[in-house]
């Protein structure tokens, strides 16, 4: 007898033997017991999960000669009918390759043939494999027969692509979907077979086969055959890795480590070693992707063992490795290598794709987590709120020379705010006007003796930056200026009706903002005191007048200063214009 591959040799012959499709086997056996045999079945599912096998077992059950009354769930395997089906020569079980007999003519022949009664058994069973390859016409020609076939006929269709089956066919069949076979089920079946055949493979080796089989038992058995053909009945894990082309976890871990430690040369040497050992770059890349996925899971899950299908010591290894990487970083690595996986197609050499991906991966900057960034941002905000003197802008010194020269002087010559850019507030245009240069604090002594000028500047600034706080401050009236050694005190009064505003300004969150603004404008610490004013209507009027007068004085002074400015004079000279209005911006 010619050597047979395991997938054929170990093809299950009874419903119980079929691996991983209990839902189908049970439905079919119950149907047989109750004598409710449908006249058309459709078996769909991915490659190598037992569709054709199940179809043959069903055919056997229907025709087993040793069963006294009708179909049996346990075909005897010894009667002529069972034997002829196993060997593929039964006159009553017709196995048709749908891909080779896909035309309407073949279906016409089939329609003629189904009329004849079975020769030996009770049923004529037509198994049409790869049924998705029938042409549209062929499917349509089959419809009538499929709806009402002679009572002795059972159709079994098998396909990997049920979406290609017309819905008119689907509705006439009992449709069974075959599941992927789990790794555990594959391992259990492999164990059974190697025990029978006297083959020795480690448990880890079986795990590797099951993983590579990716849900298909035929693939698993095919790998088993290959490795036995390669190394005989004693299989070691190295031989398995050669056959499966998997790198094993050594190189994977080394690669991940090299990447996380940004050791480009090291990582490139690992790629070189892969080539020397005849590893498949594409497969290595997809294994690397899976490994990165494990790392992410290990970082984000509290119980990674449940989600990572690996022995617990490897999970522990992964967990340790994952400690040195951030989730964001791993996500980016995942992105780089998934892209690489796509680039293999059309690359001049697959090794180059991996090399480039590795270089890219070792170059990503470690990302800080969003939480950390947010924390730093808040810290920065707080520091700015306390006053802009702290050096938060280290790198600025380097950047400044490169900054465009056009706007720089306006900011730099500002005498009041100094390094204006570090402040939370932009310098208002009035401060940055060159007119003010050299006048340190002339207003404090001028006029009423109260710092009206600075106060109005503070208010204006708030009106621009924080309008609501600004409008509240505006309601206040400057009462008193107490100069002190450590700090000055500015007393602001609020009228009876404006009590709400006074309260708001004294709130915990407003105070530091106001304080820092004051400090900046006055160039020294100033405490703001808020008092409540109790006055008669007359006094109120007086006060308002006084306030208006202060305002007028302020405007006059600005006008004088502006008119005296040499630049303006020069402009008037050259252009011959006249000044109509001066606006305080």
């Amino acid at each position, binding site marked *: 007898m010619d050597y047979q591959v395991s997938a054929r040799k170990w093809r299950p012959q009874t419903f119980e033997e079929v691996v991983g499709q209990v839902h189908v086997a049970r439905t079919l056996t119950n149907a047989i017991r109750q004598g409710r045999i449908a006249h058309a079945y459709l078996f769909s599912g991915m490659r190598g999960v037992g569709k054709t096998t199940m179809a043959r077992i069903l055919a056997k059950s229907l025709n087993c000669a040793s069963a006294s009354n009708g179909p049996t769930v346990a075909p005897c395997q010894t009667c002529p009918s069972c034997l002829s089906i196993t060997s593929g020569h039964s006159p009553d079980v017709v196995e048709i390759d749908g891909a080779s007999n896909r035309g309407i003519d073949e279906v016409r022949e089939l329609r003629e043939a189904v009329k004849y009664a079975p020769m030996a058994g009770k049923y004529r069973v037509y198994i049409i494999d790869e049924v998705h390859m029938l042409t549209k016409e062929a499917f349509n020609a089959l419809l009538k027969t499929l709806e009402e076939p002679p009572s002795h006929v059972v159709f079994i269709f098998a396909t990997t692509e049920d979406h290609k089956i017309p819905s008119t066919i689907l509705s006439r069949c009992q449709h069974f979907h075959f599941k992927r076979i789990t790794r555990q089920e594959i391992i259990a079946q492999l164990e059974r077979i190697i025990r029978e055949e006297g083959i020795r493979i480690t448990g880890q080796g079986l795990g590797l086969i099951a993983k590579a089989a990716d849900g298909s038992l035929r*693939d698993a058995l095919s790998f088993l055959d290959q490795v036995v053909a390669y190394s005989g009945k004693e299989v070691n894990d190295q031989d398995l890795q050669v056959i499966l082309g998997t790198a094993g976890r050594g190189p994977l871990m080394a690669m991940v480590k090299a990447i996380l430690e940004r050791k480009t040369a090291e990582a490139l040497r690992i790629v070189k070693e892969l080539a020397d050992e005849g590893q498949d770059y594409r497969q290595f890349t997809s294994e690397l992707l899976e490994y990165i996925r494990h790392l992410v899971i290990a970082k984000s899950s509290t119980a990674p063992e449940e989600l990572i299908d690996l022995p617990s010591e490897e999970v522990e290894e992964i967990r340790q490795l994952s400690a040195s990487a951030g989730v964001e970083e791993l996500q980016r690595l995942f992105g780089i290598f998934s892209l690489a996986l796509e680039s293999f197609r059309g690359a*001049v050499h697959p090794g180059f794709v991996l090399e480039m991906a590795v270089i890219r991966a070792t170059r990503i900057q470690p990302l800080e987590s969003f939480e950390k960034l947010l924390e730093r941002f808040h810290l920065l905000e707080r520091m700015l709120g306390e006053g802009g003197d702290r050096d938060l802008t280290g790198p600025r010194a380097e950047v400044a020379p490169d900054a465009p020269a056009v706007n720089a002087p306006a900011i730099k010559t500002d005498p009041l705010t100094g390094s204006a850019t570090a402040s939370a507030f932009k310098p208002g245009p009035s401060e940055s006007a060159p007119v003010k240069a050299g006048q340190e604090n002339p207003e404090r002594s001028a006029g009423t003796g109260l710092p009206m000028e600075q106060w109005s500047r503070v208010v204006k600034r708030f009106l621009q930056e924080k309008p609501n706080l600004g409008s509240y401050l505006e309601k206040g009236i400057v009462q008193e200026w107490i100069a002190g050694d450590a700090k000055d005190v500015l007393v602001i009064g609020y009228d009876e009706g404006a009590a709400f505003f006074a309260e708001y300004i004294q709130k915990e969150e407003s105070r530091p903002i106001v304080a820092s603004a004051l400090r900046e404008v006055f160039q020294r610490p100033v405490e703001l005191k808020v008092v409540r004013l109790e006055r008669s209507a007359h006094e109120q009027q007086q006060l308002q007048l006084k306030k208006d007068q202060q305002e007028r004085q302020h405007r006059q002074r600005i006008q004088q200063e502006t008119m005296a400015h040499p630049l303006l004079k020069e402009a008037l000279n050259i252009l011959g214009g006249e000044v109509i209005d001066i606006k305080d911006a």
Partner: protein
Amino acid sequence: MSLETSFEMILGHAHPKAILKAALASGRVAHAYVFHGEAHIGKFMTAVAFAKTGLCADPPFDQSSGRPAPTSCNCCRSCRAIDSGSHPDIRLIRPDGAQIKIDQIREVQDALSYKSLIGTRKWCVIDDADALNPEAANRFLKTLEEPPDHSVLILITARPQALLPTIRSRCHAVRFHPPSQQDLLPWLQKHRAIAPTEAQLLAALSLGRIGIAAEADPAVLRRERDRVLEALAPERLGNPSDLFNEPEDLAATQEQLSKTLDTIEIWLRDVLIGRHLPEPSLLINQDIHDRISAWSRTVSTDQILEALTLIHLLKRAAPRNINHALVLETVLLELRDAVVREPAPGLKPN
């Protein structure tokens, strides 16, 4: 066509050969194989050698195992028939035009249904199996699963992922890798009458594709490469009138363009590798490693990675109907940004 080959004559491929020999020695030859790996590296010849060994009527006897050794005698009737390409028990299928069509598969199925004439098994080698059209591939499924007794089918492909998963699942997959430069060099020196430096160049530039290394003229390969690299010279890239005046034949046809892009890709790869690894043995363009290191010093890694990404993108778009010259210019412009520091001057009047 001459198919003179044997396991011993095949360069490299230690793993595949070991797998196939072990299968022959243990009598566990599967009924279907997929040989996959890059094009032109010796998959087809290995398949023929496999069949030849399997069919050999008088294999040398292996004293240690007490059984025939898995090698071919190369002088029996069967071996000579294979060498001359006239063995009746081997069938070779190649794409008919762009595809392998259903009629060709029908022919295979017919041929396999007869008994073998000289040998013990019937062999069928299908080259470029990814060219199977859907009808042919599906028709082949049943045969691949349960072929007539004593038949072996070998599918050969450079694009295994283009095969139906149902086909792959029915075959034993054997992976082939390009032989390394170190393996290729002595072979070239032995089999081709060329100077050592030329052999070195050929071994490197062919990227292990022995089918190319065995036939290509090293002088032509070098000239073609240098012409592409000339277009990458900084002084050319920096001057727009030169940049847009790239030699027309670099992108005249789809084939030319993809060759040119391959050369650029290998060059950029060398520049990056040269920057990160000190040993020059890993470079492809070893003969001009001084130029490589000159680039390595000036161009940033990120810029090269950018350019490579662009090349991959364009390569994927290239089979569609796009302007070849435009593709090349896009790549050159990207490289100009990487190489030339100064902003490009305006078009100079001639």
